[in-house]
């Protein structure tokens, strides 16, 4: 019972953060919501008895992808400088 409640709650949290990822106006917010989503996914994998995936998600999903996305957001928000045309 308790675990089912946990699952449902986690599901709601996942959906909420996913929704925020797509629906917020600001890019950083979206990315941060996505990182939150990634962290919640780690919990979901843990609940699904998939520690391997939880590990990978923790490392890749929450960590690297988050950093990569944040870096990209910073890049996109930076003003274009002269000589930046590649």
């Amino acid at each position: 019972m308790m675990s089912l409640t946990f699952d449902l709650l986690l599901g709601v949290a996942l959906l909420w953060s996913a929704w925020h990822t797509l629906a917020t106006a600001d890019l950083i917010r979206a990315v941060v919501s996505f990182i939150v989503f990634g962290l919640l996914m780690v919990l979901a994998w843990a609940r699904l008895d998939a520690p391997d995936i939880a590990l990978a998600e923790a490392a890749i999903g929450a960590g690297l992808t988050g950093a990569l996305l944040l870096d990209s957001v910073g890049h996109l928000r930076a003003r274009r400088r002269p000589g930046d045309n590649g």
Partner: protein
Amino acid sequence: MTALEWPLALFLLANLLAALLRAARGPTAADRMLVALLFGTGGVGILLLLGRAGGNPALVDAALVLALLAAIAGAAFARRAWTDGDADERRP
């Protein structure tokens, strides 16, 4: 074995959900990032509790990795993403 793991895990998750309110409210990008960091520490706690509750010791490793790597996103945020406070949000 205590029977506390499940209720506590549930409690912590509810906590995190409540924190999402802050993420929704902002106002600065940093506030949202704080929520992400909270999810990091909270997530580590929940993982450990789940690991104990489900008898899955490997989740400790997952928690460890999460603890190590959640910081990266934060660092990237501070270093790379949050370069200009959103003009409309920069209020005390």
